[in-house]
């Protein structure tokens, strides 16, 4: 069974967002997403210091099955990307919520986070998709 940690915020397009102590937002894809994509083979990251806007494409994750867009959960500036994924994209499958994070955003308006789904709301989205 896929995990849906309570401390994260989610998009129905299967990204998660975590507000860090310094006010930045870390982004990745959910356990459910990595399970349905299968082995991840390549992640196309947004450029460092580029602007991303909420619910717009910020990158692409390529798995053995398909290429999928990654949407930014909030607007802001990309302040870090997970360079480990370049050599070892399989980390996304092994650790979707920790070592498999994609990028980090310095948000321009952190209030946007309140429009995201809670863990239980997102879990419902996944269950509906599976049926």
């Amino acid at each position, binding site marked *: 069974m896929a995990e849906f940690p309570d401390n994260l915020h989610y998009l129905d397009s299967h990204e998660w967002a975590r507000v860090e102590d310094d006010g930045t937002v870390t982004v990745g894809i959910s356990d459910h997403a990595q399970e349905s994509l*299968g*082995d991840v*083979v*390549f992640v*196309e990251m947004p450029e460092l210091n580029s602007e991303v806007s909420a619910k717009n494409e910020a990158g*692409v994750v*390529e798995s*053995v*099955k*398909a*290429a999928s867009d990654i949407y930014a959960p909030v607007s802001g500036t990309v302040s870090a990307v997970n360079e480990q994924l*370049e050599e070892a994209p*399989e980390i996304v*499958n092994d650790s979707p919520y920790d070592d498999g994070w994609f990028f980090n955003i310095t948000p321009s308006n952190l209030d946007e986070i309140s429009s995201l789904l809670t863990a239980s709301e997102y879990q419902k989205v996944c269950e509906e998709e599976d049926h």
Partner: protein
Amino acid sequence: MGHRTPLYALHQDAGAKLVDFAGWDMPLNYGSQIEEHHAVRRNAGVFDVSHMTIIEISGRESQAFLDKVLANDISRLKESGKALYSAMLDSQGHVMDDLIVYLVPTGYLMVVNCATREKDLNWLQQHSEGMDCVLVERDDLAILAIQGPDAIDRVTEVVEADCQLVIGSLKVFQGAWCEDWFIARTGYTGEEGLEIMLPGDAAKELWQRLLSVDVKPVGLGARDTLRLEAGMNLYGNDMDETVSPYESNMATTVVVEGRDFIGLEALRETKGNRKLVGLVMNEKGVLRAHYPVFCDDREVGEITSGAHSPTLGRSIALARVDTVCGNFGVEIRGKRFPVELVRPPFVRNGKQVYRAWKKNKQE
């Protein structure tokens, strides 16, 4: 609910992700598709391919019948058990299916694709009418493919002594009966291995015995990347009823001299203008089916199958193009990436084997 092979419950036990494949509930993977792929390249894996269609052909005119419906020359089969890979063409010379046919004591044993089953059976039935030739579908048999450098040893370890002798006697691309099992040294991975057609209950037992000697279950996902690395076509992706075998890298399987098979007349008029080529991308990214292919700045065709190659660590593809040139590129999400133009196969027996594309005499 789709059709289920006799191994359905065993797939569930092994943690399979089951998906619909042409009306069958088949295992896509048992966890990691890439690990399954490596298991076949490095050790041994077992695939349930019982969804494929087996047809037994017997009767005095069986050879004449196959001479008529196959683009390859059935008279090439001289030694008992030997296998032939062939296209079956329609009257326009386009590919209706690709198949394998074995010479057996009672006639021939043919294996065709699952998605084309009905079309093939109707076509074969229609063209055997009036001939002394009987077609019987063997849907009572399951098929296990055991592939990889250790595959033959692992199978030999777990089968009865009489079948061990049969396996030991097989040459590459040859099969033989061992009681009610047909064991063939063939496959769809570019590795050594066996394909075994056998009754469902026996298949279940063999599956369990193979898993107990560390043969890994492998799903259709890895089957696709293995066959692509091996440069083997997938019907429906790399060829179909809109292309000729010459446009599908199958020229060596078309024998024209002294023949009169369905589709030959059309092929004599035109072989078609396109080619199925191999592509290798050295930059990061994944080539996928239907991405457009460019030669300099002109669009010359599209990818028919593409994937990340676990063995090579980069992306490979088959593409159908109308021109070849030194400056090939593929467009991925609006951006052009350079690719190498190569002649498949990409990988054989665990090793990189592809060469730069050069024109072949038959093309």
